[in-house]
């Protein structure tokens, strides 16, 4: 009981003390670092609302003990754009969600955006099927699925076109 861990979150190093060795990353992000964009949805890894990137892979922070991510690079929703202010620039993927009004209550979106980001950054050719497969362990209760898929597909295509030289007929 009562150990300290060094975490690298959104490019910054933090020394954090935990009371219990099994303390999940989620609680440290939300309460100790104030990164509230990572959501608590079930605490059992079933819904995906708490997904963050660990060394580029989307993982569920409600199930990851803090010790297991020491030394790894952790990225949260706050680390991909420029934050909450109305003037702060959104990541192109977030911007696509805004453009498509892809959300209703929005609670599931952080985890979905982080999961989709992993997929886009892996760099393959855009594929609706891959989006659907990647999101299949993420839940949305309001029924915004169609818009969410469309927003991700649009952002992925844009990113792909840029990588491929930006020329589409």
């Amino acid at each position, binding site marked *: 009981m009562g150990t300290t861990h060094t975490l690298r979150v959104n490019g910054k190093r933090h020394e954090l003390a935990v009371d219990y060795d099994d303390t999940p990353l989620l609680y440290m992000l939300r309460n100790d670092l104030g990164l509230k964009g990572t959501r608590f949805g079930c605490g059992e890894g079933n819904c995906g609302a708490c997904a963050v990137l660990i060394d580029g892979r989307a993982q569920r922070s409600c199930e990851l003990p803090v010790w297991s991510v020491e030394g790894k690079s952790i990225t949260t929703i706050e680390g991909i754009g420029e934050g909450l202010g109305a003037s702060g620039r959104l990541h192109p993927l977030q911007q696509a969600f805004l453009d498509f009004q892809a959300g209703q*209550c929005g609670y599931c979106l*952080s985890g979905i955006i982080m999961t989709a980001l992993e997929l886009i950054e892996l760099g393959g050719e855009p594929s609706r099927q891959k989006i659907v497969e990647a999101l299949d362990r993420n839940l*949305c209760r309001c029924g915004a699925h169609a818009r969410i898929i469309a927003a991700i597909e649009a952002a992925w295509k844009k990113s792909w076109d840029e990588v491929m030289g930006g020329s589409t007929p």
Partner: protein
Amino acid sequence: MTEQRLPWSIHENPSLDQWVDFSRSGVARVFSAKVELGQGIVTAIAQIAAEELRLPMSQVVLVSGDTRYCPNESYTVGSMSIEIGGTSVRMACAEARHALVEQAARLLKADLSRITAEGGLILLDGKPSGLDYWQVAAQVDWKRPVTGAIAFTPPQALIGRSVARLDLRSKIAGGGFIHDLEMPGMLHGRVLRPPSYGARLQSLNRSRAEAMAGVVNIWCSGDFVGVCCEREYQAVKALEALRAGAHWLESETGHDARGWKELLPSLRSIDSEAEVGACPASAAGAHRVSAAYSKPPLAHASMAPSCGIASFDDNRLTVWTHSQGVFPLRDALAVALGLTREQIAVIHVQGAGVYGHNGADDAALDAALLARQVPGRAVRVQWSRDDELAWSPLGSPMVVKIDGAITPAGKIAEWTAEIWSGPHGRRPSRGAVNLLGASHVDPPIPFPESYEMLGAFAGGARNSEPAYDLPHRRIVLHSLPGLPFRTSSLRTLGGYANVFATESFIDELALAAGADPVEFRLRHLTDPRARQVIETAARLSQWRPDAERGTGRARGIGFCRYKNTAAYVAVVAEVKVQMEPRVTRAWCAVDAGLAINPDGVVNQIEGGIVQSISWTLKEEAGFDGCRVTTRNWDEYRILRFSEAPELKVELIQRPDCPPLGVGEAAQGPAAAAVANAVARALDLRIRDLPITRARIIAATAGETSP
């Protein structure tokens, strides 16, 4: 306009200063008790206010759901927020604009007809007069009634235009929910819920929890056990220790939850009925059809388990909540806690999607009960997924039996619907506390017995009267007060089951009459708006009357006018039945009168269809006669991305008609469209929801067995 025509919200809150305020330079503050539930209402009401005040939306600040400032408009429910709340704000803002212009005319010593307002500036003959709203506002007596007599300004810039949701950007960027609030010195609370309804706490060993890191307070009263800790994960661990130290006595209720069709009609009921038109004495040659349908209990299954925050300071209680009704919650809290209403402020903060009476109010009381033990410190109570699925009220199971007769000419001659349902309206209020924690503390305030009688407030009978032109219909409601679990409002109340049953039955009648389902519906509809949504959905989907039955793939249609007064919706669903029944595509036409924010309407309809498909194909809350058995996402399954259909929604915009609510308009038609498509795909009717593979196999076996 006469007094009677004022919306309820204005009637209850007649003074203009309850609705608008210009005391802050450069902005108009507009007050509404209608709250954001993920449905986009805050944006739509801000559009209405800005348009009517002739201000850009950036100069309108909407204060919503705060008992300290807002008019008491009761709940945000029933798809009435635009119809009643929005119209009230529109009337108040029209009145405010008029008051400002009138006062400006006096100050400028000019005839009223020469004065207009734009962007907060007072114009004289269309040119800036040197005055603005805020200079004039100081000289207006705002304690004046909202008369409803001021004509609305013709929509120009905002009403009827698609506007991006005001709250969505922040939510996409990682902000925006009650769960994220931090108060100075805030403690984290957890409540140990009993394992089942009716379980009684026999003993509690709290010594292990008391010795744990960060534990500030453990409070036990009756069957209520709560803990407050300095850090959140300390509270999670302390709760585990308390759970291990608690011994409960559980009791079977004697209810067998299997087979709602057998169970519900066997329960004690309070009956009411209504009959319209004369029942023809079984017209000669009429073909009689009869069928019974069932719907299981459903969970809200919000993405976020409920959360409440409360703080007691100097014997005053402040509560932050994602409740749908801050005023009724305040009144119920006053009774539960023995406080006066004046001692309590309830402030709405947005939560995850709300689809009815979920755990929000209960979490607010949990926080208040724990905060009372630690005065001066805010307490945040976060429910677990298990709490949310097991303890939020469920949408009631229902059985609907319909008997009908068609004439040789293929017209419906008789219609009798008999409904068995638990109550759908058990929200907290002053008269009925209805709060979970209050039912567990000592002395408890148990949930009062609740039942419904036919009438405007009978949730179980919602949409039981078909929107078709029928010469006769009879509705019988068997309201069941004694279900062994808590039921209350879930999106559409009884509307989902009643439309599923009605529209399934219409297809059964069409089949008996040898008619195409679309044509059969149109045959019984003269309302042009109803006809148009059906015709539009049929056109969008390229409906084929001659489609073959029993090919494993088919389309079905469903229609309703929600509550018989709100939006008209028709849905066509395409279903493929292989291993699992799956909806591949859906087309929808909606007529919501004047759609304030068309894209917002379409988004709500899309969500309604998808949520309904999830209910219809997958969902059922389990109950084993003692415990709720569906307590995590593995046990309570909802629609996944791989199962979501492609959608096409067409909005029929009617700028000259009053706006109609849409939040609950699509669920019934979508369910019926799916059920009707499955019936055509299989040439076999499934009448019990959810339509799962197991149900299809059982129905097929039932049909082929001797």
